[in-house]
């Protein structure tokens, strides 16, 4: 979230699209209700189904799964055509005025630089025009035909309400009503918040769905203000913490990238990863990357890391290719992975195409499952009848199950969607032999280190020499780890403004990442978390509920990254002169000497407005990007592409592109998976998967009460589809995709209706995901038996939200 949960109450309009917070985030949804009641906010829900969120919405529109960009692109066009944009904000705080490289272009669904054989782009032309000093050229009048504003206008000219209707199924009049309501927040005294979740990410164009809303919020001037922002509602209590700490194959903690083979030494890596300013007078905060990165290496390797040995950059693994979850299971499927550690993860239920996963897991020599519960993955080798037809004798994978504690059985911190790190305390003793994950991992590490010490190996140093200074080596405490993550001074850090003073004395916990150094005199395990455990103790354990402004940002409650900041880009809550856009939402303003307000300014506090520094300090041009440059795989402007399984045979937005532009041209498809994509002739209905409020993923089916509240698997189908197939409510039905079939009960509903898409009726089938063959609920098929093995072009999130099926009475 750029903002935070409680801040939703400050919104005038709440747009829920790509999410279903009333069901998936019922506790956070209280703030939407609060906005409605206290702020007279209007709630818009756009979704493939009429959800429990829609049940309390002011406006609802049903769209076809996988057509969000068509809808949002239509909104962008509507805002531009009707001048419903916050002009001064757009001119000053976005790259609308920046001139684009003359070679940049877009034709028939493809941007310049496409290589069909590689399914990727040469992004050289997706760039600004620069002067001889490498600074970007701008036209503040926004009239130059090569400026971003004009290019954007041209790009979205095709996204007319009529075409939106033909593609999404939302009637043009309804679409316009919603676009108008969204556009109403371009006024300086009106703000919209956007709440989304996996309904936007689990598409082959997932990242571009989010780009779209970011553009809309910039055009409306809704970023950086209370009640605004682009707010990702995270699906697990600590999934924000997971990404922050870089538990992804291409990341290190704090969103620093894991080096690749093309970055063999520290100098190359830092040169490549540290952005250079392209506009005068801008902060370009990530110019500090070397400080964050070297401090991380010091946290990893301690005294072993010295300036002379490049802080042991050589000890870091270097990626040769990506190892996202699809790539990993593809490699496993090819028999190229021997062993797999599966910690707090149930991939057999959570990764697409179960029919591919079972042979993949069967090719492993061993699998270690660390989990508090029995997962389907851990018993994949067992025959569970129709729910898991396998020949156990043919599977030789050895499975080790290590019981772990659950959150209530350990101390630690959880980072929620608000970027808030909240410390929690153990409430119960773990059952049986369950041990905290930290202890399990420490035990494995210590055993491995012994083996390396005894037997040597190809490259033992990073393991044998890894500092491990915990009081109990086999059980590092969460407190020790949290202090390490925050970081400390390894020498006295002199104050650059006054050499007689120090920012921190040797051995002290650091107060802020602003004190990190690139010379090895500081350490920090995750720079964005620096400030969470200072000399004043554990900031995450703070429980001061005071809310002095009534805006809900409670600065004394726990601790938010970065720097305990509750709203990101908050300098943008004021106009270029430093005055609040809206007196009711006065947040960070210039008082003549510095930037002040109820939050930590996301800005250089003493830079007067006249200096012209822009609020988006994390980009190297200082402004928000309407044009994403080379940041995205499939183009600098989001473009509608159909899901990989689609009822259409050509893309209505680029009909001349043919098969090439039907679906995302930059998405990766493995050999063998394309053959497993179904066609509309055989699989005429569009399916989408989702959660229900009664369950949490595949966990709560193990608890009696949740099992009582939603006991058995079902599919939601509209009344028209039911009568088409002769299905009655409660009948058993078979849902079939090209990859497999599942049997569930039918829930026939008015809440999904047939959509007119390009003149034809298209039916949507809703598939909740929660059942499996373990737990107290009625045993069920894993929904991912049906889903396609293809992901988003940028981060490979699987396309769980739009694929084709057929439905028959069982």
């Amino acid at each position, binding site marked *: 979230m750029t903002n935070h949960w409680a801040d939703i109450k400050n919104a005038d309009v709440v747009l829920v699209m790509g999410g279903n917070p*009333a069901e998936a985030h019922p506790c956070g949804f209280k703030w939407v209700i609060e906005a409605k009641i206290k702020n007279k906010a209007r709630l818009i829900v756009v979704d493939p189904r009429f959800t429990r969120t829609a049940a309390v919405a002011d406006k609802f529109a049903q769209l076809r799964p996988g057509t969000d960009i068509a809808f949002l692109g239509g909104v962008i066009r509507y805002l531009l055509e009707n001048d419903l944009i916050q002009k001064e904000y757009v001119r000053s705080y976005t790259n609308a005025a920046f001139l684009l490289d003359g070679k940049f272009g877009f034709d028939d669904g493809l941007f310049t630089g496409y290589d069909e054989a590689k399914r990727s782009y040469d992004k050289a032309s997706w760039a600004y025009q620069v002067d001889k000093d490498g600074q970007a050229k701008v036209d503040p009048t926004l009239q130059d035909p090569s400026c971003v504003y004009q290019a954007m206008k041209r790009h979205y000219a095709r996204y007319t309400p009529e075409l939106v209707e033909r593609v999404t199924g939302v009637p043009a009049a309804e679409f316009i009503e919603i676009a108008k309501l969204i556009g109403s927040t371009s006024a300086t005294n009106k703000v919209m918040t956007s709440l989304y979740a996996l309904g936007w990410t689990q598409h082959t164009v997932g990242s571009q769905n989010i780009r779209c809303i970011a553009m809309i919020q910039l055009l409306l001037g809704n970023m950086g203000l209370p009640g605004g922002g682009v707010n990702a509602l995270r699906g697990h209590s600590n999934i924000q913490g997971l990404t922050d700490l870089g538990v992804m194959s291409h990341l290190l903690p704090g969103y620093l990238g894991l080096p690749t083979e093309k970055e063999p030494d520290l100098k190359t890596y830092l040169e490549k990863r540290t952005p250079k300013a392209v506009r005068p007078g801008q902060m370009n905060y990530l110019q500090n990357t070397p400080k964050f990165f070297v401090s991380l290496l010091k946290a990893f390797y301690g005294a072993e890391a010295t300036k002379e040995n490049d802080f042991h950059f050589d000890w870091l693994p270097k990626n040769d290719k990506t190892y996202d979850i699809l790539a990993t299971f593809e490699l496993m499927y090819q028999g190229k992975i021997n062993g797999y550690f599966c910690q707090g993860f149930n991939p057999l239920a959570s990764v697409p195409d179960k029919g591919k996963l079972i042979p993949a897991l069967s090719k492993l020599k061993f699998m270690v499952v660390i989990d508090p519960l029995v997962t389907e993955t851990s018993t994949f080798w067992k025959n569970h009848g129709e729910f898991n037809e396998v020949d156990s004798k043919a599977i030789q994978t050895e499975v080790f199950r290590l019981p772990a504690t659950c959150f209530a059985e350990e101390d630690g911190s959880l980072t929620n969607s608000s970027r808030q790190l909240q410390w929690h305390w153990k409430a119960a003793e773990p059952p049986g032999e369950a041990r905290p994950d930290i202890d399990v991992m420490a035990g494995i590490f210590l055993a491995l280190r012994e083996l390396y010490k005894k037997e040597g190996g190809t490259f033992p140093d990073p393991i044998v020499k890894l500092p491990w200074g915990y009081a109990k080596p086999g059980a590092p405490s969460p407190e020790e780890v949290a202090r390490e993550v925050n970081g400390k001074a390894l020498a006295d850090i002199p104050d650059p403004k006054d050499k007689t003073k120090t920012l921190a004395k040797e051995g002290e916990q650091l107060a802020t990442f602003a004190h990190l150094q690139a010379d090895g005199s500081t350490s920090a395990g995750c720079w964005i978390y620096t400030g969470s455990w200072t000399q004043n103790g554990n900031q995450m354990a703070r429980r001061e509920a005071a809310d002095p402004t009534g805006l809900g940002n409670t600065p004394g409650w726990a601790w938010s990254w970065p720097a305990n900041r509750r709203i990101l880009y908050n300098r943008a809550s004021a106009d270029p002169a430093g005055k609040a856009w809206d007196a009711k939402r006065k947040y960070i303003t210039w008082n003549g000497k510095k930037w002040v307000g109820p939050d930590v300014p996301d800005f250089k506090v003493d830079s007067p407005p006249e200096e012209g520094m822009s609020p988006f300090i994390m980009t190297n041009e200082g402004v928000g990007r309407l044009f994403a440059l080379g940041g995205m795989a499939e183009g600098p402007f989001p473009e509608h592409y159909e899901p990989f399984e689609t009822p259409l045979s050509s893309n209505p937005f680029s009909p001349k592109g043919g098969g090439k532009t039907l679906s995302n041209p930059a998405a990766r498809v493995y050999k063998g998976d394309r053959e497993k994509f179904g066609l509309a002739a055989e699989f005429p209905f569009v399916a989408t998967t989702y959660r229900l409020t009664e369950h949490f993923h595949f966990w709560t089916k193990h608890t009696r009460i949740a099992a009582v*509240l939603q006991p058995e698997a079902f599919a939601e189908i509209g009344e028209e589809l039911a009568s088409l197939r002769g299905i009655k409510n409660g009948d058993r039905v078979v849902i079939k995709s090209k990859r497999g079939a599942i049997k569930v009960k039918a829930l026939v509903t008015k809440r999904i209706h047939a959509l007119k898409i390009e003149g034809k009726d298209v039916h949507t089938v809703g598939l909740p995901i929660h059942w499996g063959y373990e737990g107290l609920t009625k045993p069920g098929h894993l929904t991912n038996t049906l889903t396609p093995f293809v992901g988003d072009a940028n981060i490979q999130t699987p396309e769980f939200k739009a694929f084709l099926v057929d439905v028959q009475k069982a």
Partner: protein
Amino acid sequence: MALMSLDVLQQSASTSTPPQARTTLEVAKLIDISRCIGCKACQSACMEWNDLRDEVGVTEGFYTNPPDLSDQSWTLMRFNEQVIYGRLQWLILKDGCYHCEDPGCLKACPAPGAILQYANGIVDFQQEHCIGCGYCTAGCPFNVPRLSGKDSKVYKCTLCSDRIAVGLEPACVKACPTGAIGFGSKEDMLFQAEHRLVDLVERGFAKAAIYDPKGVGGTHVVLVLPHGDRPEAYGLPANPRVGPVLQAWRSGLARAAGVATMFAVLAAGILHYMRHGPLEVPPEGDQEVKP
């Protein structure tokens, strides 16, 4: 259970007034359907607090689970899909006991003290006095009490009388994430409900209304209905009231008729004796049956 005997206002099958009921605040639970998201946290909390565990059932094509109230499910979210004024509505009702001011169950109950009404308005079942006749289920205009197949006692929502007795709110209120369920004095709850109507009317629910049906003397669970003119759309009776037979049964007239009947029978007996004298018993030997 945890409220004290002095708080009892009336009890089933008993003509005597309980000794000096204390004057306590009339309470109410307010269910604002316009902010309810059907998450079933209330159902879950009810099961947790009251230690109820219904069976893991099957899906019959509805979000309502379990399918009905039972001795193990004292509250239930009922989901109704309705098209009202051309607009699809998913109406979600948190069903359960409405704690009538004039409780039909209590009126119908023949077991002394099995159903109590406290001075604060809560209607509570005392299972130790319940004889399992099920009359209360027939007497309830909302079809709420459920007879247990296990112990032949009747169960329903207690409005968490045990929590309220020690100053806590009902478990469902505590668990509700959106503040759709409130608890307090009935006066305050009605005031809040009125306030909600203003917002709902402004949003286009011109017929929004408070559900506090007069046919049962008002209830201690009141609802804000966005479609206040159509309680049936939510699955609520439009005009719940205690049935006429039951009313007559418990009225003064019935009592007078009962007393009159008693005296009439007595009088008839005396008259019969005066006319015919005592009944002669034949000699004992005639009664014996020969083997």
